[in-house]
């Protein structure tokens, strides 16, 4: 508003003049000086720099990118191997990794790098497509739970009183029921597709983040800058969105990165029990389900999907640990 030069009322022209002057000054600076001016890194720039120094976290990030790439190039893999992910071939069933199948009629050879499943489908190609579904379900579940949890947490923390008590009692009650049982119930009820499944997982996954946000909002809303905003006439929505929300983002990022692996595991568990992603869509979880009967003799049938889940969850966990350290420098001592 004012440029600090003294006079109480600064007219619009003066204001824009001052702005123009500062632009000219900036342009007249040499390159080195200009770079120096830029050197006032914000919170996230500093966090990113800290993260970059964390070797484990960066390797985990790379690993995660590779896994995502692997699922993106699924159609290419399909063309390279020469079979589609739903193509069954009972004569090529349960081939071990690296096994080949020669078509008697055409003489064509197909090599299966991760072997084939009980119906003769290529596990490598199915793994790539299954990864798409698994990761999509987990990511959507995360987004949905963040939306529900943050809204409820913010409302409870901000309004306080009766609303707070009621909402938190509800959260307590939900937390007392082993979530897998409710997940099974919801899945039976809705017979969801992948998006629906993500929503079902989110219906139970929001409790943790809502508590976290509530606690943070409770303490943030007593800060002076919130009072200042209120005095200036800001509405509740403005205060939450503009003044409180930016302060909980880093907390939410850490929570999200640590919650995502468990969401992937939830998808796998539900699909394994036959209540999740349904055939013929592959997902890492329902590949484990398909392997149920045959995995004892054909280890590759269950090994690769499980390994995919493990590696993905591991990368996200390690990245999450790195993010926590980077975003919360107070914890760096550990």
């Amino acid at each position, binding site marked *: 508003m004012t440029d600090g030069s003294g006079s109480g009322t600064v007219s619009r022209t003066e204001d824009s003049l001052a702005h123009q002057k500062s632009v000219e000054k900036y342009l007249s600076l040499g390159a080195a000086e200009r770079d120096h001016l830029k050197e006032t890194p914000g919170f996230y720039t500093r966090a990113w720099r800290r993260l970059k120094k964390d070797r484990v976290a960066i390797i985990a990030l790379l690993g995660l990118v590779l896994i995502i790439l692997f699922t993106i190039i699924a159609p290419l893999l399909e063309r390279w191997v020469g079979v589609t992910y739903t193509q069954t071939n009972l004569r090529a069933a349960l081939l071990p990794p690296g096994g080949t199948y020669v078509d008697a009629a055409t003489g064509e050879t197909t090599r299966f790098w991760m072997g084939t499943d009980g119906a003769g489908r290529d596990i490598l190609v199915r793994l790539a497509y299954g990864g798409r579904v698994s990761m999509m379900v987990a990511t959507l579940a995360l987004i949905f739970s963040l939306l529900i949890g943050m809204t409820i947490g913010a409302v409870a923390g901000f309004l306080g009183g009766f609303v707070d008590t009621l909402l938190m009692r509800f959260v307590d009650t939900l937390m007392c029921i082993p979530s897998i049982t409710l997940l099974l119930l919801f899945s039976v009820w809705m017979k969801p597709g992948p998006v629906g499944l993500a929503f079902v997982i989110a219906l139970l996954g929001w409790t943790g983040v809502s508590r976290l946000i509530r606690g943070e909002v409770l303490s943030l809303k007593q800060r002076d800058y919130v009072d200042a905003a209120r005095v200036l006439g800001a509405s509740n929505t403005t205060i939450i969105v503009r003044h409180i929300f930016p302060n909980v983002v880093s907390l939410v990022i850490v929570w999200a990165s640590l919650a995502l692996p468990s969401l992937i595991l939830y998808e796998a568990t539900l699909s394994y029990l036959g*209540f999740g992603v349904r055939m013929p869509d592959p997902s890492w979880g329902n590949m484990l389900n398909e392997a149920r009967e045959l*995995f004892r003799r054909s280890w590759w049938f269950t090994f690769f999907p499980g390994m995919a889940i*493990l590696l993905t969850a591991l990368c996200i966990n390690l990245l999450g640990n790195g993010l926590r350290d980077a975003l919360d420098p107070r914890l760096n001592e550990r």
Partner: protein
Amino acid sequence: MTRYIVRRLIGLIPLLLGISFIVFALMNMVPGSPTSQMEFNPSIKPADIERIKENLGLNDPWYQRYFTWLGNALRGDLGISFINAQPVTRTIATAMPNTLALSIPSIILAVAFAIPVGVLGALKRNSLFDRITTIFATIFYSMPTIWLGMMMIIIFGVQFQRWGLPYLPVAGTHDLRSGGGFWDRIEHMIMPVITLTLVSLAGWTRYIRTQMLETINQDYVRTANAKGLGYRIVVMRHAFKNAMLPLVTLIGLSIPDIFGGSLIVENVFGYRGMGQVLVESLNTSNYSVAMACVMFYAVLTVFGNLVADVLYGVLDPRVRLD
């Protein structure tokens, strides 16, 4: 103390009522009823289905059935299975010991290993031991329980047999031919219990390590060091005791996860416990049984939390429970 426990116990009543109401409502909003399988069976007449529904009380509105169920349940009658007309209590009575046989030893084992490993990791921070255990903890923490179980079956059940090594049975609670002696049952428990243990062990080790690290940096530990107390006394009396307090709460709060884990493990190892019964009953819309299973989990969880809170109060004199 007694007053606190009584008050908490009274507080459990609305909580359990709330849970049972939510779960009952959910189950009855699910389309598909125990009779929906019969509707595809040409040899069963629609009139018979109607009669079965009437007998099972399925024609009443669900809230009315809830109160009937609640009244009966309070008198210890959980109804009959919609599928084989067995009393639900009998189904539960055979399945429950199996679930407890998996979860209780695994809680004990996990605590017994997590405490020394976590504490040593914190005391010898960044040592080789600490690094290796942290790596393993992170890996097991990210591992799908299902897959861990399957891999154990492949290695210790199948491959060991092939290699001529002593191997473990891969499924069931006991040997069906011999009827199952004590050692036979133990043998069948080994793999499921280890699977279940490894999963919670990973998280708990990390947690204990963090707690211990936090505690040994506290002022009172520094004071104890400064006044010349021996290393052993500082670690065991000053740091360890305080670091272990939150563990009580953690175990209390982990009970739902342990039962969730046992549900999975039971399914992988074909171990007939509550988890398997629950999955089966949901698959056949057998809601009287499913309801009992969910309530079993809920009651244990709620009581677990209560016990954890009370124990915390007993162990930590700073916490006043009135």
